[in-house]
């Protein structure tokens, strides 16, 4: 099993390295990641949402649906732990 795991990990790593070859350089301000969608956030988020912290603006407004999903994930985890572990005590409801 360990050998398989090692091979799998190495293969995955090799693939990922292979993919990085054509990636934009590190910190390149003109990379597609920084030039396609995000400039508009930086330019107009503060103005449109009155929130200087652009991350907060994007998190809770532009992509607030994601954030809702994130909250639901926490809720799910909480309820999941309750479902799995919490036991009923005598004489109590719930």
């Amino acid at each position: 099993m360990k050998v398989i795991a090692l091979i799998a990990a190495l293969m995955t790593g090799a693939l990922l390295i292979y993919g990085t070859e054509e990636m934009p350089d590190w910190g390149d301000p003109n990379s597609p990641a920084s030039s396609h969608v995000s400039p508009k956030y930086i330019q107009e988020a503060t103005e449109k949402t009155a929130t200087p912290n652009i991350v907060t603006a994007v998190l809770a407004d532009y992509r607030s649906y994601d954030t809702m999903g994130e909250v639901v994930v926490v809720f799910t985890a909480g309820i999941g732990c309750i479902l799995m572990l919490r036991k009923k005590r005598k004489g109590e409801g719930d």
Partner: protein
Amino acid sequence: MAEQFAALVIVVPLIASLFVPLIGWWKKELCYPWVVAVLVVPLISSLGVLNTVMTTGKFSYRLGGWAPPWGIEYMLDHLSAFVLVIVSFISLIVAIYAKKSVEDELPEKTVPFYTLFLLLVTGLLGIVITGDVFNLFVFLEISALSCYALIAIGEEGAPIAAFNYIIIGTIGACFYLLGVGYLYIATGSLNMADLANILPDLYHSKVILIAFAFFTVGVAVKAGLFPLHVWLPDAYCTAPSAVSALIAPLMTKVAAYVMIRVMFTVFQPHFSVDIVPVFAILGWLAVFAIFFGGIKALAQTDLKRMLVYIVVAEVGYIVIGVSVANRMGLTGAVLHIMNDAVMMACLFLVVGAIFYKTGTRDIHQLRYLNKKMPFTMAAFTITALSMVGIPPACGFFSKWYLILGSIEAGQWVWAATLLCSSLINAVLFFRVIECAYFKPMEPAYAHDGGTHEEIQRDEAPLTMLVPIVIMAAGVILLGLFSGNIISSVIQFAVPASF
């Protein structure tokens, strides 16, 4: 207003799930009616969405009012609306069914169970409806997390199965996330439609290639495609009946939907078919999946475990349909998503009902079950015939299109595999049917009717029986009306370039 149906599909079960703990605190018995009543809403809404899509074509719903690709949007076309209807319908049916089964198997945990049940449904619906690759990841995790917890409370061995599922499922989700990351670094966008516009210029980039590879592997893990299925049998088998009845039909199908989405919407068919040899690999894996699932199923005497291996094989069907990458094959794949969801739901519901009534799932102990539970067994038989591919049950039609697709693609072995698989299924299911209906009796009995010990009819309770019967009727009706379904929905769900 009709557009707001799209929002309701997700929001209603989500908000309703929040109220379940509160209701359960007040009165435990009200959880069940609440869940059932609430799950009607997504069904109606998704029907509304489907109707809108059918009349006015595909549309998008902007969450928060932000235009894509800056905000998140729902992508509502024929495919997603179709799968939405399937998911919401089956979850409603399973919810109706869950009552007795949960009271029997998890008497103290009904409240969190129903909460997570709704959350799982929300997650599945969210995966289907979203038009944003990262948002899809979030909902994938919602459904996965609730699924882990629901599986872990099953019978002996369930926690181990759940833990394995967590590890492998997380690897799958992380691979998907890596795929998203690679796509993002190369394109800067996360919106599916936007990606589809940008990507064609980048098709020969290594980054895109790797992103595609990781998407494929991640989704294949979630779908339980052959070498990555190791988590699936134990997890589905040890889960509580109601849970396996929900996840076995839906989880793998939704993952298959994501596969179609990624391969044909985000990436254009041109890329997936011509540039990357992925379909050759996937198709052969599917062939192995079908044989592996079938043969493993043959070795089982536990009915549920047998079905679980059949789930592995059925994933192979859909993947073959995707892999042949032509109109017929894809029609078959989409049709099979629906058919298989209905058939699997019916089979797992039946197994749950048998387990509830008799406390066993051993095939050899099903004797006289046709006398004891005639309706349940009739439903089982109908669905079994459908799995074998006997018309006019729905299984035949998806198989037909899949075979046509394979022939069109010149993949003879795939077509032969599909045929062999029906034979394997025949052996599997007739074994069970024989045990339940025709177990050899004492020779003296063979010729004088009705003198054997009277077997009382002891049918499953109505809340279980009604869903089973509905699903069995669905198996036949979907078969009869598959022509209409194809001509009005599925043919538009297949990418136009085919």
